[in-house]
C-alpha cells in the first residue's frame, strides 16, 4: 500500500468537495427546470467513491452504483463531461442514450451497470474473471447500495466471485435506506458484511464518512485481490444527505438526518487537513471558489451546446446498422 502524501489528501478533498458542489448545483438546476435529467445525489457519501478509487491503476476498473458519482470524478471524468452527459449533448459520452450514472467510460476504466439494481454485480465478476484470464493483476471495484444486497444477483455474483477467486472488491454503500423505505424492510440483520462469511471471503465494516478509513480498507482488499486471494466485501456505513431522487419526498426521520449531518465526510476531511496543517483556511476557500467558478462556466457551456438529435436515437443498436 502506498502511503498517502499531503498532496493526495488535498486531492481527495478536492474531489469530494467538487462532487458535493457539483451535485448540489445539479439539483438546483433540476429544481429550476433547466437540467433535463434527475439524479441520485451522492451528497453525504463522497468519502466512499473517492476513498476506494483513489490511487487505482489506469488498468483497473470500477463499476459504480446509481449513486457513486465519485467513481467518475476520481477516475478522471471532468465536470464538463458530466454536465454534457446530464444535458444529453451532442458531444457527450453517449449522446443522451444513457443516464450519466449508468454511463461507461471504457478509456477511464469505468464500466456501466444497467438500471436493474444489482445486475451489475455478476457483470463485475465476469469482467474481473476476464482480467484474471488475461494474466494481469488488475482489479475491479464494484459498488452497490444496501438495497442491492437483497437481490438474487448479489448472491449469485458474490458466490461466483468466491468460486473463481475473482479479483474483485465489493463495496456496499449502506446508507440505511433504499428509495423510500428503511433497511428494516430489506433485512433482519444490521451488517451486510456478515454475508461474506457465507461465500468464504472476508467481510469488513468501515466508517463510510471517513475517507482515509475507506481508502485503507479498500487498499487492503485490493492487495488481496491482486495477489490472487480473491474478493472482499466492504460495507461502508453511510448516509445520504439528500432525498433519494429530487421528485420523491423525504421519508426519513428528521432526528436521524440531523444526527448524521454531524458526520459530513467533506467537513471531516477538511477539518483534518486544517488541523494537521495540510491546508490553510484561505487555500480551502480558494479551492471552493475555483470549483464554483469552473462549474459556472461548465453549466454555461453545457447549456449552450446542441442536444443530441434523432440520428443519435436511432443508431448503434447493432454493430452494423439495425436489423
Amino acid at each position, binding site marked *: 500500500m502506498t502511503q498517502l502524501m499531503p498532496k493526495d489528501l488535498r486531492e481527495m478533498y478536492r474531489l469530494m468537495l467538487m462532487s458535493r458542489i457539483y451535485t448540489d448545483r445539479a439539483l438546483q438546476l433540476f429544481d429550476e427546470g433547466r437540467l*433535463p*435529467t434527475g439524479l441520485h445525489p451522492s451528497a453525504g457519501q463522497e468519502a466512499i467513491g473517492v476513498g476506494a478509487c483513489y490511487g487505482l491503476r489506469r488498468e483497473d476498473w470500477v463499476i459504480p452504483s446509481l449513486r457513486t458519482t465519485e467513481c467518475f470524478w476520481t477516475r478522471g471524468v471532468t465536470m464538463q463531461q458530466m454536465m454534457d452527459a446530464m444535458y*444529453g449533448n451532442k458531444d457527450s459520452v453517449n*449522446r*443522451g*442514450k*444513457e*443516464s450519466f450514472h*449508468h454511463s461507461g467510460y471504457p478509456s477511464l476504466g469505468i464500466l456501466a451497470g*444497467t*438500471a*436493474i*439494481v*444489482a445486475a451489475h454485480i455478476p457483470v463485475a465478476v465476469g469482467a474481473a474473471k476476464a482480467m484474471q484470464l488475461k494474466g494481469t493483476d488488475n482489479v475491479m471495484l464494484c459498488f452497490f447500495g444496501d*438495497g*442491492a444486497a*437483497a*437481490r*438474487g444477483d448479489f448472491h449469485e455474483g458474490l458466490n461466483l466471485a468466491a468460486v473463481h477467486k475473482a479479483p474483485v472488491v465489493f463495496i456496499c454503500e449502506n446508507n440505511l435506506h*433504499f*428509495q*423510500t*423505505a428503511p433497511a428494516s*424492510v*430489506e*433485512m433482519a440483520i444490521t451488517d451486510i458484511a456478515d454475508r461474506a462469511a457465507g461465500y468464504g471471503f472476508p467481510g469488513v465494516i468501515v466508517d463510510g464518512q471517513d475517507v482515509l478509513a475507506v481508502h485503507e480498507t479498500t487498499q487492503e482488499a485490493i492487495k488481496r485481490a491482486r495477489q490472487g486471494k480473491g474478493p472482499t466485501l466492504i460495507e461502508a456505513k453511510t448516509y445520504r444527505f439528500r432525498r433519494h431522487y429530487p421528485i*420523491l*419526498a423525504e*421519508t426519513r426521520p428528521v432526528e436521524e438526518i440531523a444526527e448524521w449531518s454531524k458526520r459530513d465526510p467533506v467537513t471531516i476531511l477538511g477539518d483534518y487537513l486544517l488541523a494537521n496543517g495540510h491546508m490553510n483556511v484561505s487555500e480551502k476557500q480558494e479551492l471552493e471558489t475555483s470549483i464554483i467558478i469552473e462549474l459556472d462556466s461548465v453549466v454555461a457551456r453545457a447549456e449552450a451546446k446542441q*442536444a*443530441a*438529435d*434523432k440520428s*443519435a*436515437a*436511432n443508431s448503434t*443498436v447493432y454493430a452494423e446498422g*439495425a436489423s
Partner: protein
Amino acid sequence: MKTLTYGEAIREALFEEMASDDRVLVFGEDVAGYGGLDGVTQGLQKKFGTERVFDTPISESGFAGMAVGAALMGMRPVAEMQFSGLLTVPLDQIVNSAAKARYVHDGAMSCPLVIRSVTYPAGNAYMGQSLEAWVAHVPGLKVVTPSTPIDAKGLLLTSIRDPDPVVFFEHKSLYSNEGLVPEETYSIPIGEASLARTGSDVTIVAWLNMVPAALDAAKELALEGIDLEVIDLRTLIPLDEEAITRSVSKTGRLVIAQEAVTRAGFGAEVIAVVANSDVVHHLKAPVERVGNPGVPIPHSDRLNNHIIPSKDDLIAGVRAVLSS
C-alpha cells in the same frame, strides 16, 4: 357517475377489494409506507394495516414467489412491479410458478394473483420496456391493459377476483387522465375489447397509452373526412378476436398502435388473427404497424420521443393504409 383519474380509479379498486375481501394483500417496493412512487397505493397501509399492505426489499423474484405461495394458500395477493422493464427479473416466478400452477395440479389448485406492472417508455433502456408480448405468450396467464379510469377500476376488480394469475399493465402517463366512473360497484369482464370510436375507413387496434393517441389521431383526421374506428383491446389475453375481425371486415384497413417494439410484439398477434380468418380477403391494403422501430428506450427525453410512437406516427400509418 363521478370523475376520477386513472390512478385514483386503480386506488379505489384496491380499497374496495381490500375492504370486501380480507384475503387481498398488497405489496411491492415503496407501495406501503410511501404509497407508491405515483401515489397509487396511498393510504392503503394506514387503512388495512402492516400485515396486509407491506413494502418489500428489492427482491422482485422473491416477492413474486411469495405472491405465488400466498395465492396457493388461498390469499389474493396484488404485487406491484414498479416498472414494466422489471418484469425481466421476476419472470420465472410469474411464468413458471404462477402460470402453470393450475395445470400441473390438474385443476386441484389455483393461483389467483395480480402483478401490477407500471409501464412507462422513458427513463432508460431497461425500465422503459413494454413487455406485454412476453406474458401474452404464456398459457395460464391473463393479460390486462386498460386505457381509461372506468376500465382500470373495473378490470382491476375483475383481475383480483379472477381465479387465475393476471398481469395487469398500468400506464404511468395515463395516471392523471380523468374519466367518469360509476358511483356504485361494478366490474368489467376480462376478455372484451371496447369500441373506443366507431368509424368506417380504417381500424386502429390499440391498448394502454396508444388508445388516447389513436383517438387524437382520429380527431385530427376527421377534419379531413377520414373516419377511424378505434378498438381498445383492454385485455390482450384472452383476446377478443371477434371485435378485431368484425371491425377489419368492415373497414378493410388495419393499423396497429403499440408502444412496444414492433418486431414480435403483440400487434403481430393481432395481425395473425386477421390473417388467419376470412377477413384477410377483405383487406384493401397491407396492414401497418406503428410502434417502437426496434431501439432501446434512450434516457434523454429529447431522444426517446423519436422512438416512442406518437399521434403523428399513427396518422402516417393511417395515410399509408389509405394510399394503397
